[in-house]
Protein backbone atom coordinates (compact mmCIF):
# COMPACT_ATOMS: atom_id res chain seq x y z
CA UNK A 1 0.00 0.00 0.00
CA UNK A 2 1.39 3.41 -0.92
CA UNK A 3 0.45 6.83 0.36
CA UNK A 4 0.06 9.71 -2.04
CA UNK A 5 0.95 13.14 -0.73
CA UNK A 6 -2.28 14.81 -1.72
CA UNK A 7 -4.39 11.98 -0.31
CA UNK A 8 -1.90 10.52 2.07
CA UNK A 9 -4.33 8.09 3.63
CA UNK A 10 -3.57 9.28 7.15
CA UNK A 11 -4.31 12.37 9.20
CA UNK A 12 -1.90 15.01 10.50
CA UNK A 13 -2.68 13.79 14.03
CA UNK A 14 -1.69 10.27 12.99
CA UNK A 15 1.66 11.20 11.48
CA UNK A 16 2.42 13.34 14.53
CA UNK A 17 1.68 10.45 16.88
CA UNK A 18 3.57 7.96 14.73
CA UNK A 19 6.66 10.15 14.34
CA UNK A 20 6.76 10.74 18.11
CA UNK A 21 6.41 7.02 18.76
CA UNK A 22 9.35 6.19 16.47
CA UNK A 23 11.70 8.29 18.57
CA UNK A 24 11.03 6.30 21.73
CA UNK A 25 13.81 3.71 22.01
CA UNK A 26 13.17 0.32 23.52
CA UNK A 27 14.01 0.19 27.22
CA UNK A 28 13.62 3.95 27.72
CA UNK A 29 11.89 5.08 30.91
CA UNK A 30 9.20 7.51 29.85
CA UNK A 31 7.04 9.62 32.17
CA UNK A 32 3.88 9.94 30.09
CA UNK A 33 1.31 12.70 29.98
CA UNK A 34 -2.30 11.87 29.09
CA UNK A 35 -3.63 12.32 25.53
CA UNK A 36 -1.14 12.57 22.65
CA UNK A 37 1.96 11.56 24.66
CA UNK A 38 0.15 8.48 25.93
CA UNK A 39 -1.01 7.52 22.43
CA UNK A 40 2.51 7.89 21.00
CA UNK A 41 4.20 6.05 23.87
CA UNK A 42 1.80 3.12 23.68
CA UNK A 43 2.13 2.95 19.91
CA UNK A 44 5.89 2.62 20.42
CA UNK A 45 5.31 -0.12 22.97
CA UNK A 46 3.01 -1.99 20.57
CA UNK A 47 5.43 -1.73 17.65
CA UNK A 48 9.22 -1.39 17.92
CA UNK A 49 9.69 -0.82 21.66
CA UNK A 50 8.01 -3.63 23.62
CA UNK A 51 10.20 -2.97 26.66
CA UNK A 52 9.70 0.77 26.90
CA UNK A 53 8.84 1.58 30.53
CA UNK A 54 5.77 3.81 30.84
CA UNK A 55 5.23 5.73 34.06
CA UNK A 56 2.03 7.69 34.67
CA UNK A 57 1.79 10.24 37.47
CA UNK A 58 -1.06 8.30 39.07
CA UNK A 59 1.63 5.92 40.34
CA UNK A 60 1.63 3.20 37.71
CA UNK A 61 5.11 1.99 36.78
CA UNK A 62 5.57 -0.20 33.71
CA UNK A 63 2.00 0.38 32.59
CA UNK A 64 0.86 -1.71 29.58
CA UNK A 65 -2.65 -0.51 28.79
CA UNK A 66 -4.46 -2.41 26.07
CA UNK A 67 -6.64 0.64 25.49
CA UNK A 68 -5.65 4.27 25.89
CA UNK A 69 -6.50 5.75 29.26
CA UNK A 70 -9.07 8.53 29.23
CA UNK A 71 -7.62 9.86 32.47
CA UNK A 72 -4.22 9.60 34.08
CA UNK A 73 -5.68 7.34 36.77
CA UNK A 74 -7.61 4.76 34.75
CA UNK A 75 -7.80 1.24 36.16
CA UNK A 76 -6.39 -0.06 32.88
CA UNK A 77 -3.06 1.53 33.82
CA UNK A 78 -2.91 -0.24 37.18
CA UNK A 79 -4.16 -3.61 35.94
CA UNK A 80 -1.12 -4.49 33.87
CA UNK A 81 1.56 -2.38 35.55
CA UNK A 82 4.70 -3.84 37.10
CA UNK A 83 3.80 -2.03 40.30
CA UNK A 84 1.47 0.72 41.50
CA UNK A 85 2.85 3.18 44.04
CA UNK A 86 1.48 6.29 45.73
CA UNK A 87 1.45 9.69 44.05
CA UNK A 88 4.05 11.19 46.42
CA UNK A 89 6.30 8.22 45.77
CA UNK A 90 6.05 8.59 41.99
CA UNK A 91 7.05 12.24 42.11
CA UNK A 92 9.69 12.00 44.84
CA UNK A 93 11.43 8.63 44.40
CA UNK A 94 10.95 8.08 40.69
CA UNK A 95 10.86 11.50 39.01
CA UNK A 96 12.81 13.74 41.41
CA UNK A 97 15.02 10.76 42.26
CA UNK A 98 16.34 10.92 38.71
CA UNK A 99 15.00 7.69 37.20
CA UNK A 100 13.10 9.19 34.24
CA UNK A 101 14.79 9.31 30.81
CA UNK A 102 12.07 11.12 28.87
CA UNK A 103 9.36 13.42 30.22
CA UNK A 104 6.70 13.37 27.52
CA UNK A 105 4.35 16.35 27.71
CA UNK A 106 1.52 18.05 25.95
CA UNK A 107 0.91 21.79 26.23
CA UNK A 108 -1.54 24.58 25.46
CA UNK A 109 1.24 26.94 24.39
CA UNK A 110 4.92 26.51 23.71
CA UNK A 111 7.39 29.31 23.00
CA UNK A 112 10.60 29.60 20.95
CA UNK A 113 12.64 28.20 23.85
CA UNK A 114 10.30 25.29 24.51
CA UNK A 115 8.78 26.76 27.65
CA UNK A 116 5.28 25.44 28.32
CA UNK A 117 2.06 27.15 29.36
CA UNK A 118 -0.79 25.10 30.77
CA UNK A 119 -2.15 27.65 33.25
CA UNK A 120 -3.93 30.61 31.61
CA UNK A 121 -4.42 32.33 28.27
CA UNK A 122 -4.22 36.11 28.63
CA UNK A 123 -1.91 38.47 30.41
CA UNK A 124 -3.70 38.86 33.76
CA UNK A 125 -3.44 35.87 36.09
CA UNK A 126 -6.35 37.15 38.18
CA UNK A 127 -8.60 37.77 35.13
CA UNK A 128 -7.53 35.27 32.49
CA UNK A 129 -9.09 35.14 29.06
CA UNK A 130 -9.13 31.36 29.39
CA UNK A 131 -8.48 29.44 32.56
CA UNK A 132 -6.60 26.22 31.66
CA UNK A 133 -6.48 23.15 33.95
CA UNK A 134 -3.15 24.13 35.49
CA UNK A 135 0.29 22.74 36.07
CA UNK A 136 -0.37 19.13 37.11
CA UNK A 137 2.89 17.25 37.07
CA UNK A 138 4.50 19.28 34.27
CA UNK A 139 6.76 21.77 36.11
CA UNK A 140 8.74 19.04 37.85
CA UNK A 141 8.65 16.62 34.90
CA UNK A 142 10.13 19.42 32.77
CA UNK A 143 12.88 20.19 35.30
CA UNK A 144 13.76 16.68 36.53
CA UNK A 145 13.55 14.28 33.57
CA UNK A 146 16.81 13.64 31.70
CA UNK A 147 15.16 15.19 28.66
CA UNK A 148 11.72 16.41 27.66
CA UNK A 149 9.61 15.92 24.56
CA UNK A 150 6.61 18.02 23.74
CA UNK A 151 3.84 16.96 21.39
CA UNK A 152 1.45 19.67 20.25
CA UNK A 153 -0.50 20.79 17.19
CA UNK A 154 1.31 23.68 15.57
CA UNK A 155 -0.62 26.95 15.05
CA UNK A 156 -0.35 30.65 15.77
CA UNK A 157 -2.45 29.98 18.86
CA UNK A 158 -0.09 27.34 20.26
CA UNK A 159 3.33 28.41 18.94
CA UNK A 160 3.92 31.79 20.53
CA UNK A 161 6.90 34.10 20.79
CA UNK A 162 6.50 34.16 24.55
CA UNK A 163 4.11 32.03 26.61
CA UNK A 164 1.36 33.96 28.42
CA UNK A 165 2.35 32.13 31.57
CA UNK A 166 5.47 30.05 32.07
CA UNK A 167 4.17 26.93 33.79
CA UNK A 168 7.00 24.51 33.02
CA UNK A 169 10.51 25.42 32.07
CA UNK A 170 12.04 24.52 28.71
CA UNK A 171 15.25 26.22 27.64
CA UNK A 172 14.04 29.21 29.66
CA UNK A 173 15.61 32.32 28.12
CA UNK A 174 17.91 30.36 25.82
CA UNK A 175 21.66 29.79 25.91
CA UNK A 176 22.74 28.31 29.24
CA UNK A 177 19.94 30.02 31.18
CA UNK A 178 18.17 26.72 31.83
CA UNK A 179 21.19 25.13 33.48
CA UNK A 180 21.83 28.31 35.48
CA UNK A 181 18.22 28.32 36.68
CA UNK A 182 18.84 25.08 38.55
CA UNK A 183 16.81 22.81 36.30
CA UNK A 184 18.24 19.35 35.75
CA UNK A 185 18.36 17.39 32.51
CA UNK A 186 18.72 18.56 28.93
CA UNK A 187 15.27 20.16 28.66
CA UNK A 188 13.17 19.86 25.48
CA UNK A 189 15.14 17.90 22.90
CA UNK A 190 12.20 17.57 20.50
CA UNK A 191 8.88 19.27 19.85
CA UNK A 192 6.80 17.03 17.63
CA UNK A 193 3.89 18.67 15.82
CA UNK A 194 1.39 17.82 13.11
CA UNK A 195 3.69 19.60 10.63
CA UNK A 196 7.14 18.39 11.59
CA UNK A 197 9.72 18.30 14.35
CA UNK A 198 11.56 21.16 16.04
CA UNK A 199 14.82 20.66 17.93
CA UNK A 200 16.87 23.18 19.90
CA UNK A 201 19.87 24.93 18.39
CA UNK A 202 22.88 23.55 20.31
CA UNK A 203 24.03 27.03 21.38
CA UNK A 204 21.09 29.43 21.45
CA UNK A 205 18.63 26.66 22.40
CA UNK A 206 16.02 28.28 20.17
CA UNK A 207 13.67 25.73 18.60
CA UNK A 208 14.59 25.14 14.97
CA UNK A 209 12.54 23.30 12.36
CA UNK A 210 14.55 20.18 11.66
CA UNK A 211 12.04 17.77 10.07
CA UNK A 212 8.88 18.04 8.02
CA UNK A 213 6.13 15.47 7.64
CA UNK A 214 5.36 14.27 4.10
CA UNK A 215 3.65 16.94 2.02
CA UNK A 216 4.23 19.79 4.48
CA UNK A 217 6.22 22.83 3.31
CA UNK A 218 8.55 25.11 5.21
CA UNK A 219 6.11 27.92 4.46
CA UNK A 220 3.26 26.06 6.14
CA UNK A 221 5.40 25.59 9.22
CA UNK A 222 6.43 29.26 9.26
CA UNK A 223 2.82 30.33 8.87
CA UNK A 224 1.83 28.26 11.90
CA UNK A 225 4.56 29.71 14.13
CA UNK A 226 4.25 32.89 16.17
CA UNK A 227 7.91 33.81 15.89
CA UNK A 228 10.44 34.08 13.10
CA UNK A 229 11.02 30.34 12.77
CA UNK A 230 14.57 29.28 11.98
CA UNK A 231 15.08 26.36 9.63
CA UNK A 232 17.81 23.75 10.02
CA UNK A 233 20.42 23.55 7.29
CA UNK A 234 19.41 20.04 6.59
CA UNK A 235 15.69 19.37 6.95
CA UNK A 236 14.78 15.74 7.37
CA UNK A 237 11.73 14.27 5.74
CA UNK A 238 9.59 12.25 8.07
CA UNK A 239 9.00 8.83 6.57
CA UNK A 240 5.33 8.16 5.87
CA UNK A 241 3.57 5.79 8.26
CA UNK A 242 4.13 2.13 7.64
CA UNK A 243 1.15 -0.13 7.31
CA UNK A 244 2.01 -1.67 10.70
CA UNK A 245 2.20 1.71 12.42
CA UNK A 246 -1.08 2.92 10.98
CA UNK A 247 -3.00 -0.26 11.62
CA UNK A 248 -1.65 -0.54 15.15
CA UNK A 249 -2.55 3.07 15.95
CA UNK A 250 -6.02 2.79 14.48
CA UNK A 251 -6.68 -0.48 16.26
CA UNK A 252 -5.56 1.15 19.48
CA UNK A 253 -7.91 4.09 18.94
CA UNK A 254 -10.81 1.89 17.97
CA UNK A 255 -10.32 -0.44 20.96
CA UNK A 256 -10.18 2.68 23.11
CA UNK A 257 -13.37 4.23 21.74
CA UNK A 258 -15.20 0.94 22.12
CA UNK A 259 -14.01 0.35 25.68
CA UNK A 260 -14.76 3.84 26.93
CA UNK A 261 -18.18 3.77 25.31
CA UNK A 262 -17.65 7.28 24.00
CA UNK A 263 -15.69 8.98 21.26
CA UNK A 264 -12.67 10.77 22.61
CA UNK A 265 -12.13 14.39 21.77
CA UNK A 266 -10.13 14.22 18.53
CA UNK A 267 -6.38 14.48 19.10
Amino acid at each position, binding site marked *: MSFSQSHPGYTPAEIMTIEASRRLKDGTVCFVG*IGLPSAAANLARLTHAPDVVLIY*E*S*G*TIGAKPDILP*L*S*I*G*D*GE*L*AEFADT*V*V*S*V*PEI*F*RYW*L*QGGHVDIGFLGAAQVDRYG*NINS*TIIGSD*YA*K*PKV*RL*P*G*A*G*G*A*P*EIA*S*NAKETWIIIKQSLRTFVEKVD*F*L*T*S*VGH*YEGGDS*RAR*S*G*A*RGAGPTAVITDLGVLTPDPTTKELVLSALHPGVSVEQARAATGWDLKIANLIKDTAPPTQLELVTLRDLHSRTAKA*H*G*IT*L*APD
Partner: protein
Amino acid sequence: MESRIMPLADAVRRHVKDGQTLALEGFTHLIPTAAGHEIIRQKRRNLTLIRMTPDIVYDQMIGMGCASSLEFSWGGNPGVGSLHRFRDAIQNGWPNAVTISEHSHADMAGRYQAGASGLPFSVLRGYVGSDLPKHNPNIKSITCPFTGEVLAATPAINPDVTIIHAQKADRKGNVLIHGIIGIQKEAVLAAKAAIVTVEEVVEDLEAPMNSCVLPHWVLAAVCEVPMGAHPSYAHGYYDRDNAFCKEWEVISRDRDRFLEWMNAHVLGTPNHAQFLAYAGIR
Protein backbone atom coordinates in the same frame (compact mmCIF):
# COMPACT_ATOMS: atom_id res chain seq x y z
CA MET B 1 -15.34 1.43 72.09
CA GLU B 2 -17.77 3.54 70.11
CA SER B 3 -18.17 2.25 66.58
CA ARG B 4 -16.71 4.35 63.83
CA ILE B 5 -19.13 2.87 61.33
CA MET B 6 -22.06 5.25 60.81
CA PRO B 7 -24.30 6.67 58.09
CA LEU B 8 -22.59 9.24 55.86
CA ALA B 9 -25.06 11.98 56.79
CA ASP B 10 -24.16 11.52 60.46
CA ALA B 11 -20.43 11.59 59.74
CA VAL B 12 -20.71 14.81 57.74
CA ARG B 13 -23.01 16.42 60.32
CA ARG B 14 -20.64 15.54 63.13
CA HIS B 15 -17.32 16.45 61.52
CA VAL B 16 -17.77 18.93 58.68
CA LYS B 17 -18.37 22.56 59.74
CA ASP B 18 -18.64 25.86 57.90
CA GLY B 19 -15.33 27.61 57.36
CA GLN B 20 -13.18 24.49 57.61
CA THR B 21 -10.33 23.38 55.41
CA LEU B 22 -11.47 20.25 53.64
CA ALA B 23 -9.73 17.74 51.39
CA LEU B 24 -11.81 15.28 49.38
CA GLU B 25 -9.00 13.34 47.74
CA GLY B 26 -8.88 10.74 45.01
CA PHE B 27 -6.67 10.59 41.94
CA THR B 28 -9.22 9.92 39.17
CA HIS B 29 -9.84 6.63 41.00
CA LEU B 30 -11.99 6.42 44.17
CA ILE B 31 -13.26 10.00 44.24
CA PRO B 32 -15.56 10.57 47.24
CA THR B 33 -18.50 11.90 45.24
CA ALA B 34 -21.22 10.74 47.63
CA ALA B 35 -19.55 12.63 50.48
CA GLY B 36 -19.36 15.78 48.35
CA HIS B 37 -23.08 15.48 47.62
CA GLU B 38 -23.87 15.10 51.31
CA ILE B 39 -21.89 18.28 52.08
CA ILE B 40 -23.96 20.04 49.42
CA ARG B 41 -27.17 18.68 50.99
CA GLN B 42 -26.09 19.92 54.41
CA LYS B 43 -25.34 23.33 52.87
CA ARG B 44 -21.86 23.83 54.29
CA ARG B 45 -20.39 27.22 53.42
CA ASN B 46 -17.05 29.05 53.28
CA LEU B 47 -15.02 25.89 52.91
CA THR B 48 -11.40 25.99 51.82
CA LEU B 49 -11.30 23.06 49.44
CA ILE B 50 -8.00 21.31 48.82
CA ARG B 51 -7.39 18.75 46.13
CA MET B 52 -4.66 17.87 43.67
CA THR B 53 -7.15 17.20 40.88
CA PRO B 54 -10.48 18.97 41.44
CA ASP B 55 -13.03 17.52 39.03
CA ILE B 56 -16.79 17.04 38.82
CA VAL B 57 -17.59 16.79 42.52
CA TYR B 58 -15.61 19.97 43.31
CA ASP B 59 -17.28 21.66 40.32
CA GLN B 60 -20.59 20.74 41.95
CA MET B 61 -19.59 21.93 45.42
CA ILE B 62 -18.22 25.21 44.04
CA GLY B 63 -21.29 25.76 41.88
CA MET B 64 -23.56 25.14 44.85
CA GLY B 65 -21.75 27.76 46.91
CA CYS B 66 -19.93 25.57 49.45
CA ALA B 67 -16.44 26.95 48.80
CA SER B 68 -14.74 30.28 49.27
CA SER B 69 -11.28 29.10 48.34
CA LEU B 70 -9.57 26.32 46.38
CA GLU B 71 -6.05 24.94 46.64
CA PHE B 72 -5.13 22.66 43.73
CA SER B 73 -2.67 21.62 41.06
CA TRP B 74 -4.84 20.51 38.11
CA GLY B 75 -8.51 21.27 37.63
CA GLY B 76 -10.52 19.64 34.89
CA ASN B 77 -12.96 16.97 33.79
CA PRO B 78 -10.39 14.30 32.83
CA GLY B 79 -10.53 13.30 29.19
CA VAL B 80 -13.45 15.66 28.59
CA GLY B 81 -12.56 19.29 29.19
CA SER B 82 -12.96 22.22 31.52
CA LEU B 83 -14.83 22.62 34.77
CA HIS B 84 -17.42 25.25 33.95
CA ARG B 85 -18.62 25.97 37.49
CA PHE B 86 -15.02 26.29 38.67
CA ARG B 87 -14.28 28.72 35.82
CA ASP B 88 -17.48 30.68 36.40
CA ALA B 89 -16.60 31.11 40.07
CA ILE B 90 -13.05 32.23 39.38
CA GLN B 91 -13.79 34.43 36.38
CA ASN B 92 -17.20 35.81 37.34
CA GLY B 93 -17.61 35.18 41.04
CA TRP B 94 -20.73 33.03 40.54
CA PRO B 95 -22.35 32.00 42.84
CA ASN B 96 -19.68 33.60 45.01
CA ALA B 97 -16.06 34.62 44.68
CA VAL B 98 -13.57 31.79 45.01
CA THR B 99 -9.90 32.54 45.55
CA ILE B 100 -7.34 30.07 44.31
CA SER B 101 -3.96 28.89 45.48
CA GLU B 102 -2.19 27.04 42.72
CA HIS B 103 0.62 24.48 43.06
CA SER B 104 2.07 21.59 41.06
CA HIS B 105 1.29 17.90 41.64
CA ALA B 106 4.77 17.14 42.97
CA ASP B 107 4.42 20.00 45.42
CA MET B 108 0.92 19.12 46.60
CA ALA B 109 2.04 15.51 47.11
CA GLY B 110 5.03 16.67 49.14
CA ARG B 111 2.89 19.05 51.17
CA TYR B 112 0.50 16.26 52.12
CA GLN B 113 3.52 14.12 53.02
CA ALA B 114 4.85 16.89 55.25
CA GLY B 115 1.44 17.21 56.87
CA ALA B 116 1.28 13.45 57.47
CA SER B 117 4.85 13.54 58.80
CA GLY B 118 4.22 16.22 61.41
CA LEU B 119 6.58 18.62 59.64
CA PRO B 120 5.66 22.27 59.06
CA PHE B 121 7.02 22.45 55.52
CA SER B 122 7.97 20.42 52.47
CA VAL B 123 11.13 20.69 50.37
CA LEU B 124 10.89 20.28 46.60
CA ARG B 125 13.21 20.36 43.63
CA GLY B 126 10.62 22.24 41.69
CA TYR B 127 9.09 25.35 40.14
CA VAL B 128 12.40 26.09 38.44
CA GLY B 129 11.80 28.95 36.01
CA SER B 130 8.04 28.76 36.55
CA ASP B 131 5.76 31.77 36.97
CA LEU B 132 3.71 29.99 39.63
CA PRO B 133 5.73 31.28 42.62
CA LYS B 134 5.11 34.85 41.43
CA HIS B 135 1.41 34.35 42.04
CA ASN B 136 1.57 32.18 45.14
CA PRO B 137 3.20 33.63 48.28
CA ASN B 138 3.16 30.14 49.81
CA ILE B 139 5.92 29.01 47.48
CA LYS B 140 9.15 30.10 49.15
CA SER B 141 12.73 28.90 48.97
CA ILE B 142 15.12 27.21 51.38
CA THR B 143 18.86 26.69 51.29
CA CYS B 144 20.45 23.29 51.92
CA PRO B 145 22.74 23.64 54.95
CA PHE B 146 25.17 21.14 53.42
CA THR B 147 25.37 21.93 49.70
CA GLY B 148 24.11 25.51 49.56
CA GLU B 149 21.56 24.54 46.90
CA VAL B 150 18.37 26.58 46.85
CA LEU B 151 15.16 24.54 46.73
CA ALA B 152 11.46 25.30 46.88
CA ALA B 153 9.74 25.17 50.28
CA THR B 154 5.98 25.11 50.79
CA PRO B 155 3.75 24.74 53.85
CA ALA B 156 2.48 21.35 55.00
CA ILE B 157 -1.18 20.54 54.35
CA ASN B 158 -3.15 19.57 57.46
CA PRO B 159 -6.85 19.67 56.57
CA ASP B 160 -9.46 19.98 59.29
CA VAL B 161 -11.21 17.08 57.59
CA THR B 162 -10.07 14.68 54.88
CA ILE B 163 -12.64 12.53 53.11
CA ILE B 164 -11.72 9.63 50.84
CA HIS B 165 -13.47 6.66 49.27
CA ALA B 166 -12.07 3.11 49.50
CA GLN B 167 -13.03 -0.40 48.49
CA LYS B 168 -13.76 -1.99 51.86
CA ALA B 169 -13.68 -1.83 55.61
CA ASP B 170 -13.99 -4.51 58.25
CA ARG B 171 -16.45 -4.24 61.13
CA LYS B 172 -13.90 -2.47 63.32
CA GLY B 173 -13.44 0.16 60.62
CA ASN B 174 -10.03 -0.85 59.27
CA VAL B 175 -9.91 0.18 55.62
CA LEU B 176 -8.22 -1.36 52.58
CA ILE B 177 -7.42 0.77 49.52
CA HIS B 178 -6.36 -1.06 46.41
CA GLY B 179 -5.19 -0.09 42.92
CA ILE B 180 -4.29 3.52 42.23
CA ILE B 181 -3.93 4.69 45.82
CA GLY B 182 -3.00 8.27 44.97
CA ILE B 183 -2.43 10.63 47.86
CA GLN B 184 -5.16 9.18 50.06
CA LYS B 185 -3.07 7.71 52.88
CA GLU B 186 -1.17 10.97 53.32
CA ALA B 187 -4.33 13.07 53.14
CA VAL B 188 -5.95 10.93 55.85
CA LEU B 189 -2.93 10.91 58.16
CA ALA B 190 -2.41 14.66 57.73
CA ALA B 191 -5.99 15.53 58.72
CA LYS B 192 -7.36 16.44 62.12
CA ALA B 193 -10.31 14.15 61.33
CA ALA B 194 -10.80 11.66 58.51
CA ILE B 195 -13.96 10.19 57.02
CA VAL B 196 -13.81 7.17 54.72
CA THR B 197 -16.70 5.99 52.58
CA VAL B 198 -16.38 2.39 51.40
CA GLU B 199 -18.04 0.16 48.84
CA GLU B 200 -18.74 -2.48 51.45
CA VAL B 201 -18.13 -3.56 55.02
CA VAL B 202 -16.77 -7.11 55.16
CA GLU B 203 -15.86 -9.66 57.82
CA ASP B 204 -12.22 -9.91 56.75
CA LEU B 205 -10.26 -7.36 54.72
CA GLU B 206 -8.04 -10.08 53.24
CA ALA B 207 -5.37 -7.43 52.83
CA PRO B 208 -2.00 -8.53 51.43
CA MET B 209 0.74 -7.92 54.04
CA ASN B 210 2.23 -4.78 52.53
CA SER B 211 -0.94 -3.27 51.08
CA CYS B 212 -2.42 0.13 51.84
CA VAL B 213 -4.44 -0.30 55.04
CA LEU B 214 -5.74 2.52 57.21
CA PRO B 215 -6.31 1.30 60.77
CA HIS B 216 -9.64 2.25 62.34
CA TRP B 217 -8.02 4.31 65.08
CA VAL B 218 -6.82 7.02 62.67
CA LEU B 219 -10.33 7.40 61.24
CA ALA B 220 -13.17 9.47 62.70
CA ALA B 221 -15.89 7.77 60.68
CA VAL B 222 -16.33 4.93 58.21
CA CYS B 223 -19.49 4.90 56.08
CA GLU B 224 -20.76 2.16 53.80
CA VAL B 225 -21.78 3.87 50.53
CA PRO B 226 -21.97 1.51 47.55
CA MET B 227 -20.99 3.27 44.31
CA GLY B 228 -19.92 6.19 46.44
CA ALA B 229 -17.26 7.17 43.90
CA HIS B 230 -19.56 7.39 40.86
CA PRO B 231 -18.86 8.70 38.16
CA SER B 232 -15.30 7.79 39.18
CA TYR B 233 -14.53 4.10 39.58
CA ALA B 234 -13.64 1.65 42.32
CA HIS B 235 -11.09 -0.92 41.16
CA GLY B 236 -12.66 -4.35 41.43
CA TYR B 237 -16.20 -2.97 41.82
CA TYR B 238 -17.24 -0.81 38.87
CA ASP B 239 -15.82 1.20 35.99
CA ARG B 240 -15.69 4.90 35.39
CA ASP B 241 -18.94 6.27 33.94
CA ASN B 242 -17.44 8.05 30.97
CA ALA B 243 -20.82 8.85 29.49
CA PHE B 244 -21.78 10.76 32.61
CA CYS B 245 -18.49 12.67 32.55
CA LYS B 246 -19.30 13.78 29.00
CA GLU B 247 -22.85 14.61 30.00
CA TRP B 248 -21.52 16.78 32.84
CA GLU B 249 -19.82 18.94 30.23
CA VAL B 250 -23.29 19.82 28.92
CA ILE B 251 -25.10 20.05 32.26
CA SER B 252 -22.48 22.29 33.82
CA ARG B 253 -22.08 24.75 30.96
CA ASP B 254 -25.23 26.63 31.85
CA ARG B 255 -26.00 28.02 35.32
CA ASP B 256 -29.72 27.27 35.18
CA ARG B 257 -29.34 23.81 33.83
CA PHE B 258 -26.69 23.12 36.47
CA LEU B 259 -28.96 24.32 39.30
CA GLU B 260 -31.90 22.40 37.94
CA TRP B 261 -29.84 19.22 37.78
CA MET B 262 -28.36 19.64 41.27
CA ASN B 263 -31.73 20.49 42.80
CA ALA B 264 -33.37 17.45 41.30
CA HIS B 265 -30.56 14.94 41.71
CA VAL B 266 -28.73 15.96 44.87
CA LEU B 267 -30.86 18.30 46.97
CA GLY B 268 -33.94 16.40 45.86
CA THR B 269 -32.67 13.05 47.12
CA PRO B 270 -32.01 12.21 50.77
CA ASN B 271 -28.93 10.05 50.26
CA HIS B 272 -26.62 8.42 47.72
CA ALA B 273 -28.74 5.30 47.21
CA GLN B 274 -31.71 7.49 46.29
CA PHE B 275 -29.48 9.64 44.10
CA LEU B 276 -28.33 6.58 42.18
CA ALA B 277 -31.91 5.35 41.80
CA TYR B 278 -33.16 8.76 40.68
CA ALA B 279 -30.32 9.15 38.19
CA GLY B 280 -30.92 5.64 36.91
CA ILE B 281 -27.38 4.53 37.62
CA ARG B 282 -27.04 0.76 37.80
